[in-house]
């Protein structure tokens, strides 16, 4: 508690500092990332550490990030200029009346999976019926939609940050991302054959992750600078995948700065999993365009779960500003 308060105070201080104008021509942006410092954000760190944002006349401030900081909340409250979060969360913000737009979409496919120990005997989603399943509340839309879609009624529990809930046997099935928790389980000594994995995207509940979002007003006022931000961030990502040693080093440095214990193996594996989401077969970054079908599906999933209430799906072209 005390820790969280300290961090929030620190964050606010950083925000205040970021508002001090550095130069007449420099465009200042605060960037709020979704989770603790890890390879999930390597591209932004690389672009920042290489000085590419600054070289492009962008004064980007990467704000402290972690479970204490909700990018959507901070964006809704107007504390951040640029946020990196999920389409589902973004649509919920839009539904609540906050005018934000998607300016880039790196990951087209959800990396979320449901994972169980191999002896749970789960083969298809129907097998989850009646089992104890935990999932993160902020990412509940997809699993909950999956349960509806297959007409199953598991006992659902909220999930914290640790995978001990699964390995201790407290639940039968837990939620995980391919790039983080699945790697974590591997580094806890579990092999692929020790686990059963149901990727949500393979079962009709895909929702693109890690989009770049800004408020509409911001976009209208500083479109050129934001386009530059996207371009530089892409460069950072391309570089990160081509130079994993550098990327992992900078990630670990940031994690240590934030007091978050991690290790090289974890970050390196995370980056290598992300490769498959970010890069096409030729090793180039995807175009970064949000797919209108994914957009429509995400809205319907959220609406089906009552997580958005709007009768009408917001206009895709209004939301998508790539």
């Amino acid at each position: 508690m005390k820790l969280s308060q300290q961090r929030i105070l620190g964050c606010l201080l950083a925000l205040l500092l970021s508002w001090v104008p550095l130069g007449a021509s420099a465009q200042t942006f605060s960037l709020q990332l979704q989770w603790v410092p890890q390879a999930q954000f390597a591209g932004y760190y690389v672009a920042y550490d290489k000085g590419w944002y600054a070289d492009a006349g962008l004064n980007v401030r990467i704000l402290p990030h972690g479970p204490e900081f909700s990018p959507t909340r901070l964006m809704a409250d107007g504390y951040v200029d640029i946020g990196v979060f999920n389409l589902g969360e973004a649509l919920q913000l839009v539904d609540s009346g906050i005018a934000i737009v998607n300016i880039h979409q790196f990951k087209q496919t959800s990396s979320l999976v449901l994972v169980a120990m191999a002896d749970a005997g789960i083969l298809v989603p129907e097998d989850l019926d009646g089992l104890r399943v935990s999932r993160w509340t902020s990412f509940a839309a997809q699993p909950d939609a999956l349960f509806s879609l297959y007409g199953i009624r598991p006992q659902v529990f909220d999930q914290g940050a640790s995978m001990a809930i699964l390995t201790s046997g407290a639940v039968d099935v837990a939620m995980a991302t391919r790039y983080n928790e699945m790697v974590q389980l591997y580094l806890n000594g579990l092999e692929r054959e020790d686990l059963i994995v149901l990727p949500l995207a393979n079962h009709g509940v895909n929702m693109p992750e890690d989009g770049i979002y800004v408020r509409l007003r911001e976009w209208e006022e500083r479109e050129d600078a934001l386009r530059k931000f996207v371009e530089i961030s892409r460069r950072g990502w391309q570089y990160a995948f081509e130079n994993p040693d550098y990327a992992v080093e900078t990630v670990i440095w940031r994690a240590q700065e934030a007091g978050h214990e991690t290790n090289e193996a974890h970050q390196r594996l995370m980056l290598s999993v992300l490769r498959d989401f970010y890069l096409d077969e030729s090793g180039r970054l995807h175009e970064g365009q949000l797919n209108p079908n994914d957009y429509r599906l995400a809205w319907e999933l959220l609406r089906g779960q009552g997580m958005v209430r709007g009768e009408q799906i917001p206009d895709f072209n209004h939301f998508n500003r790539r």
Partner: protein
Amino acid sequence: MLARHSLATRLALVSLLTIATIFFISTGAVYTMIRGILLENAEAQSRELVRATANQILISLNEVAGVGQHMAIHLQIGAYQPDDLFPMLDETVRGSRIISGANVSYEPFAAFPDRQYFGPFSYQTPEGIARMNLGGRGYDTFTRDWYQIPALTGRPYWTEPFPSAVDSNRLIVVYSVPFFDAEGALQGVIALDVELRSLVSIVDDVEIFDTGYAFLLSPTGRLITYPHEEWVMRESIFSLAQTLELPALRELGRQMQRTREAFLPLPTGILDEGARLYYLRLPELEWSLGVVIPERELFASIQRVISAILIIGSAGFLLLLLAIILISRGITRPLKGLVSSAEEIARGNLDRALPTIKTQDEIGDLSRSFDDMRRSLKDYINDLTQTTAAKERIESELKIARNIQMSFLPKRLALEGRQLPVDLHAELLSAKAVGGDLYDFFPMDDGRRLFFAIGDVSDKGVPAALFMAVTKTLVKGFAEQSPNPGEMLYRVNNELCLNNDSGMFVTYLCGVLDLTTGEMEFANAGHNPPLIARANGQHEWLKLPPGLVLGAMDDIEFPVSKVQLGPGDALMLYTDGVTEASNPQQELYGEDALEKLYARIKNHSAKAQVDAVFKAVEAHANGAEQSDDITALVLRYRPQPKG
């Protein structure tokens, strides 16, 4: 090469090689056995140590568990009310050595209908015990492992180490126990904080050998304590396996998660040297406690033992080498003396005395035998010298005898420069230096008649030669006085029979050819029939009158036969040395072969015929030793044409 080395070198080499082989095999066996014993000891020692350490940890943890379960019972029976917990929590923290925080967190709205989060929490600070209410916005109690896992499983739970909520620099593990109401519905979770430091110090204090160390792994393989500070709480055995690319380390980690205890080699790559690991999985907590012992240290005592063995062994080798050299010198020195004596003896100096060897061993025996041999040899050679001298003398006398014998035989037919009308040639080839054959021819009646003869004494050598000489002399003496050859043989026989104590005899064939008429009278004393060749090309064995050998019996008659020779007719007389010459296969030359030969050569000159016969006999013998004298006489009648 070895063959050229001295006996001493070979003896030393073979003995040392054999002993070295035995030495190294036994040293290897000793090494393996000691190594096994040391490993067993190390295993026992580390097992003791790990179990003792584990017990220390478990004692502490059991204390915590006891407190937690005690509290749960009290909460379940309603001994404490939610608003009355702090004094008890304060007391719990104060009264325990290792509990640094105590908390009771209730299920949402379970303590009070309006309180979603109610979690009175007392915890140790440097200033004393502080209180706070845990849970609320920013700290979601219900999704924390320490709360959620016991809440869901209904069982106590030990967490992984994590930073304390009140001081992120303090790593804690939490023991949490769920408690229920009378209906069995979950009321909340009791959480007791244990500072990792207090457990870690137990492990850090472990000392095994000089550089051995202990370490602790969390259930997920995280390094809770380890000598590498920078790895602690950051790396797990699995992340290290990944980063260091050591699949064996990952396997080890999985094994440590799944089996209770084991003693095994630490996979290479973690330490710079080989090491052994003993680990034990702590019950309930599921932590793994391990000790690592570098093999270098573990096996240091072997190195010392082996070094000592090698030094002692090497000294032993030198001693042995010395002993072998001394013994073999003892053997070979007298042998060398013997060798030089033997060389001297071989050069003929049999007077050279052998070195005196007093030892009663085989070398002494050898030396004595060798000296006996030298003396025997010396005697033998003395005898041999004398014998040889005697033999040489006899041989020289025989040579003279032969010369004398040969001089008895007529060389050529001549009568005061007048050519007789015959072509005659005879030759004798002795088997021994002095032969037993004889031939003879001489003109009679002033060249009107020709006497010729051939004979073979029953023996060979000197006695035969003498007998032959006597026979020849008698023939010569009686030939002129006797009217015919038969009469002559009668007289010669009677003379030979006189005083013939040795029992020798002689076969004899003789004839007298009237050189004017070609009429030939002949008598035979047991000799082979000659071949006769007519000028018209016919040839035959000449029919001989009967007659006994000379010298066997006196006063016997020798009938005379006559045959008319025409111009060009020829005779060949021979001894049985021709027909009975044998080859290495013991086959005789034979009369048939002689007749065939004769058919080819009968028209040749007398000398050519004799040569041809000798050549044929030599060819037949084919290198076999000549056993009998060989003699041949050829005569061709060649009267002067009349008118």
